[in-house]
């Protein structure tokens, strides 16, 4: 999350949070969610959820954990692309992507905590290492990465509220190691979410059970990053009545399209090698949902991203982004629900009102937190913030997240607090320039 050559919005003196109707609704939903959380904590999982012995994991695991972690993958993939692969073009979206990721992970930790029957024991894995469990890897990596992201945010925080000198002394040499650990940990736990289901061989439908599950989860979390950024850009652009930056987005999704093609070949090849291919045209609910996932959720968006004429058209670009995101959400749902249905001994599961209220409440709180941070910390670029304050705050709640500003290079020369830190190993005071 280094500043590099991006000019971030000047920081306002006063803390503030503008109110709109939409934000009030979000506050109300967040409040309801907290009530539901209280109910769950007092009365337990049986009273609050529709989970049972045949369906021990439900909505919270699917959405708050599985899908939430995947969709928050935009953070680590942006850090990797910008800081390690040197694509400076995407530097302006780095902070917003990382903020989305940080808030996403805090929600994941919250959602996961609520799902634990004996949450007061949540510290136990730190001393009683069940290292043979994938859940252990997941616990260590997700909590570790959340801490890493909080530290990454401290560098931004420092620009708003200078940290004590001692903290700065500690943080300064940590910058690069933190960046590196912040890429390794997500790589491990994105795949671990898939590895979780390896042990369910025999229970998980063979259409989904594969030794490659960890790789599938990792790859899909990586390509869904650009797709998610595209969707977010279109939402914010339409809220402001402006044109989304098609040129930058199409560059990102082209890469996603290539990755998705490779993913598609792997998924189908894996079925063929395991001899499960005939199961695809069996006509069962499982096979139909598998086809929808692979065709509508992977193949179609991949094609839309790869073909030049469709990826440059706003409508098809947005459609591709939305399909890819929904495809990943459906893919996770297929593993959590569809593939487990046959081994549930006829038992059914549909989320309860409390489960829904908690999930919706957590999302609302997440959006509000994002808005608060964006309005009070140097996250957006100068131009984004200007647009946000002239349109967004007054008209609607949607901010301008993750919108890359191609012209940022022009404003790169002005001094910025972060430039004084030795960001890329450069000497104090040197400005980093980039290739346009």
């Amino acid at each position: 999350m280094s500043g590099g050559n991006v000019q971030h919005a000047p920081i306002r003196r006063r803390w503030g949070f503008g109110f709109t109707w939409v934000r009030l609704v979000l506050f109300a939903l967040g409040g309801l969610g907290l009530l539901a959380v209280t109910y769950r904590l007092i009365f337990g999982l049986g009273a609050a959820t529709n989970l049972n012995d045949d369906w021990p994991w439900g909505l919270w695991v699917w959405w708050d954990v599985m899908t939430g972690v995947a969709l928050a993958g935009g953070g680590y993939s942006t850090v990797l692309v910008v800081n390690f692969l040197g694509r400076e073009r995407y530097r302006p979206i780095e902070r917003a992507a990382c903020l989305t990721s940080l808030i996403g992970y805090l929600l994941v930790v919250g959602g996961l905590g609520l799902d634990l029957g004996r949450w007061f024991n949540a510290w136990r894995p730190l001393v009683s290492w069940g290292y043979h469990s994938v859940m252990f890897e997941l616990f260590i990596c997700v909590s570790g990465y959340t801490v890493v992201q909080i530290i990454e945010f401290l560098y931004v925080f420092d620009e708003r509220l200078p940290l004590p000198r001692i903290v700065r002394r500690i943080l300064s040499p940590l910058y690069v190691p933190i960046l590196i650990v912040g890429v390794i940990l997500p790589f491990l736990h994105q795949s671990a979410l898939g590895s979780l289901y390896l042990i369910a061989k025999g229970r998980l439908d063979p259409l989904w059970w594969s030794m490659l599950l960890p790789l599938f989860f990792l790859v899909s979390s990586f390509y869904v990053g650009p797709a998610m950024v595209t969707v977010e850009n279109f939402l914010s652009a339409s809220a402001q009545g402006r044109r989304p930056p098609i040129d930058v987005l199409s560059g990102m999704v082209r890469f996603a399209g290539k990755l998705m093609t490779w993913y598609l070949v792997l998924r189908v090849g894996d079925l063929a090698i395991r001899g499960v291919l005939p199961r695809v045209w069996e006509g069962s609910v499982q096979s139909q949902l598998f086809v929808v996932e692979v065709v509508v959720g992977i193949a179609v968006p991949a094609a839309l991203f790869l073909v030049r004429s469709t990826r440059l058209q706003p409508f098809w670009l947005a459609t591709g982004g939305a399909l890819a995101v929904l495809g990943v959400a459906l893919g996770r749902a297929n593993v959590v629900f569809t593939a487990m249905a046959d081994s549930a001994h006829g038992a059914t599961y549909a989320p309860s009102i409390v489960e829904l209220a908690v999930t919706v409440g957590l999302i609302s709180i997440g959006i509000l937190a994002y808005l608060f941070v964006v309005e009070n910390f140097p996250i957006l670029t100068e131009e984004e913030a200007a647009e946000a304050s002239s349109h967004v705050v007054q008209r609607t709640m949607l901010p301008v997240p993750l919108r890359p500003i191609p012209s940022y290079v022009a404003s790169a020369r002005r001094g910025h607090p972060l430039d004084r830190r030795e960001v890329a190993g450069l000497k104090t005071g040197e400005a980093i320039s980039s290739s346009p």
Partner: protein
Amino acid sequence: MPPNTRIPRRTFLKAVAVTAGTAGIATALPAGSAAASGTPPEDLAEEHAGDRALLIDLTKCVGCGRCVDACKAENGLAWREDHPARGPDATLAAANWSVVRSEGRVGAGGEPRYVKTQCMHCLDPACASACFVKALHKQDNGIVAYDPSICVGCRYCLMACPFGVPSFDWDATFGSVTKCDLCDERAERGEPTACSEACLTGAITFGSRGELLKEAHRRIAARPDRYVDHVYGEHEVGGTSILYVSDVPFEELGFATGLPTDPLPSYTWEVSRLIPPTAAGLGLTLIALYARRRQVLRAQELREAVATGTEAQA
């Protein structure tokens, strides 16, 4: 580097990486599907021959339910109407550690058949390997034991168990996992399980796994016309300490059939063992990438400084 060699080199490297990656996965796949475990199943059986075990002969069970009564009494479990412990709908639940399920008149002569169900006490238990705090663990005497004081309540064990055994106490504010512990307390006193002691028909035999396995095969060999030639639990998921023999095929009695003969933890291990080298390789790659990036930035900086200097001179 001259600019014209740049792109082909990069494309070439990328192509090499993608090809190598795909080829690596393709070769890893069959190996992974075969899933070689640390301990081969035969050794596992030998290692656990002395374990506390039960042999359940379904041809001898009359469905009286005395074993269920004994289990409930021994462990202080409540009778609950919504979770029957006997009859056609009997299922394992928080208060049902052992149940007897009626399977209807499926016997060769139309006799009813009953299936006593409880924790199978796997030789290499999936639940214990899935537990990330070791609240579930395999004891030296073969019992898969549970310690609620360190359990986090994540219910991954419920997901992992191929037999659907562990239950969660959903009604409690701080629910815990529950299941048969093969009468661990009695084991300390050297006594058999409560259920086997209560059985009047000889359907439940208590002993060591090695002996009971021999006994099971002896019964099948003595009456090949009667028994199905299959000791359920001998090979399933690497073997279990509860063994079944039957005259009706197991798939008709609601048993989980078609389970792999490899212990389930071996599948996870295939992937988990790759984590340390992957993390190390990834770290080194990132360090190399970052170092290279810094060089590029410095060179650029230098060029620009020179350019600015020239401009200033002009």
